[in-house]
């Protein structure tokens, strides 16, 4: 009776051991193609979907105090809570912009001319434009990133971006630095200039910095806070 139990436990332990070993071997470099042919690692599904993105946006917004609505909600010529992926694809085709769906609910466009967005040339080319949509396929989050600029070009672009923003939204609630070339020529945090706006229905941020890897860079962010 007891030996029978021991034998069963031994079999179970062996089975578990073999399973663990098989999983480990399947993830070894030489077996990666076999793993992929079987559908890949089930843990590989750890990616964002519109559901998780919306969750991230809500978590972030919940931490932001705001009491007044925005006088305007500029978003690179797109309309927050209105523009759809179909609209973006049509725009990309029309303006011959290289855009791809990075994942469901996220379109990324590379090397975008500012004129393609109806923006002044002084803003400079955008390395990457990200457009994120909610579960209703409406635009809720836009980001641009420009890097590897020289301080003068970064300053020109930053002023071209921030000036109209201030005109539309007024002075930023939080800000630091002046986006000047001399500031952007400094290193690390000494180079940081930023404006941050928080409204009940809108978030806008522009930050410029001489980054560790990419040199002077500009990050623009416009997001809907309407839910």
């Amino acid at each position, binding site marked *: 009776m007891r030996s029978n139990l021991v034998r069963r436990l031994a079999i179970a332990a062996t089975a578990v051991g073999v399973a663990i070993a098989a999983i480990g071997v399947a993830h070894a470099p030489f077996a990666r193609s076999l793993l992929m042919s079987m559908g890949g690692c089930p843990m590989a599904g750890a990616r964002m979907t519109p559901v998780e993105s919306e969750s991230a946006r809500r978590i972030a917004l919940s931490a932001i105090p705001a009491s007044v609505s925005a006088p305007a909600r500029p978003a690179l010529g797109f309309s927050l809570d209105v523009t759809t992926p179909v609209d973006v694809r049509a725009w990309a085709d029309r303006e011959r912009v290289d855009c791809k769906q990075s994942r469901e609910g996220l379109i990324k466009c590379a090397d975008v001319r500012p004129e393609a967005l109806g923006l002044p040339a002084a803003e400079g080319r955008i390395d990457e434009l*990200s457009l994120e949509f909610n579960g209703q396929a409406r635009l809720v989050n836009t980001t641009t990133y420009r890097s590897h600029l020289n301080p003068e070009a970064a300053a020109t672009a930053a002023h071209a971006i921030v000036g109209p923003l201030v005109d539309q939204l007024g002075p930023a609630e*939080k800000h630091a630095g002046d986006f000047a070339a001399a500031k952007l020529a400094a290193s690390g945090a000494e180079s940081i200039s930023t404006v941050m706006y928080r409204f009940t229905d809108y978030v806008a941020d522009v930050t410029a910095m001489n980054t560790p890897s*990419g040199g002077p860079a500009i*990050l623009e962010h416009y997001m809907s806070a309407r839910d």
Partner: protein
Amino acid sequence: MNKNRLIVGLGTAFGAALAAAACSSSSSPSNPATEPDSGGTSSSSSGGGSSSSSSGGGSSSSSGGVTDAGDAGSTLYSRLGGHAGIRGAVDAVVAQELMNTDIASYFFNQVATPVPAGHPTAEQIEECFTDFLGSAAGGPETYPTTVVTTDAGTVTASDAGGDAGTFLCRDMMVIHQPLKISGGTFDEFIMIAGGVLTSAMGTGPYTYTTADIGTVAGVLTGARSAIVDTNQADAALQPFPGPDAQ
């Protein structure tokens, strides 16, 4: 220069701790009585109150070897606002990072509902990193540590919204490897964190100086090589490429 170092350092640490916590550690039912090293022992009240004595200027913390370069009337920890002040800065940075499409993708576990078993919540990550920075700044916090979330302390009620269990914060450098963070992503993270921290200087409880920033930076800088994947060091910003990415 010192300010520069601090922001980069803080950003680095933020990235390290947050991303590390995002895919590490373990959760278990809360039992504050058995977690003496929890954040509950370094709540906002204790943080501010202890800052003028035990973690005073010129001392070195047990974890980071920080030498306080501030004035004699206060400590680095207190100029950072104590535990509550640091936690406020961490919360602000996390909120700003989560607004970014690429950065948020590294926190897929924290924004999932429910948060998968074995992974910390956003609140636990925030508290974990608060303890990390508090420890580095000479406060009473320890790191690595186990943070506890209760209605009574550690994480404020508005943050926690209830009992979120305990969370063991593990080594932040090791945990970054599977995240395959690119140099571009690191830059973007630094920009976001730096913008938040720079704009917060001189506001609220924050009275830290440029010299303070350099002090903290001495502990925190140099982590970039441990955070950024060597194969992705020159890569542009990118969302989490997934665990099967090469």
